[in-house]
């Protein structure tokens, strides 16, 4: 199996993700780790809630990995996304890509996170000290 796509409610495990993609034919692994930031445009963020339309989110992440294997010479691709309530410094997303050469690993990893942010039906709500907002929902 060359892809590992999961939506999880428990904390994500960076080392387990790296261990999963490592393979003898690969000369490099590129990992993107998303983390919860403590502020947005100067407003202090208290926590985030992530919600997913699960079957479609899995299906859209599968589409992204199919595109990645068509476009880049990569060996193994992992996408883990967390849902539920996350605190500052928690990890909502890990993307790990193993490839024979680093160019493909970097490019594929970037393609995956950029596309995920545009197409995968997952939503985050930011909680501030004085209110809350669904990110990007209104102009």
């Amino acid at each position, binding site marked *: 199996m060359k892809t590992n796509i999961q939506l999880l409610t428990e904390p994500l495990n960076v080392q387990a993700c790296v261990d999963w993609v490592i393979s003898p034919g690969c000369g490099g692994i590129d990992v993107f780790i998303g983390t919860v930031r403590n502020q947005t445009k100067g407003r202090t963020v208290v926590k985030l809630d992530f919600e997913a339309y699960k079957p479609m989110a899995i299906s859209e992440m599968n589409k992204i990995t199919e595109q990645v294997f068509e476009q880049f010479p990569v060996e193994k691709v992992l996408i883990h996304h967390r849902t539920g309530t996350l605190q500052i410094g928690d990890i909502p997303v890990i993307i790990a890509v193993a490839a024979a050469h680093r160019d493909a690993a970097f490019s594929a990893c970037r393609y995956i996170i950029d596309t995920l942010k545009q197409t995968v*039906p997952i939503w985050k709500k930011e909680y501030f000290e004085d209110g809350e907002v669904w990110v990007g929902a209104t102009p």
Partner: protein
Amino acid sequence: MKVTVLAFGIAKDIFGASSVEVEIPGDTTAARLKAVLEQNYPRLSKLASYMLAVNNEYAGDDMHIKTGDEIALIPPVSGG
């Protein structure tokens, strides 16, 4: 016919529920369903954008809705 529309993110706040039932004419397109939803829930038209998904796929405006389809309202996504 009656269809159920699943709601996520801000759409849940707008519907006041995680799904709503809507009565639409038979042989309706995604675009017509969006128009009916916007009539019932005017705040939808204030979103930055939104899409409908039919059976877990983004639906173009001319996609036909059939009885039993799983329909979801997808406000702007913000994962990652």
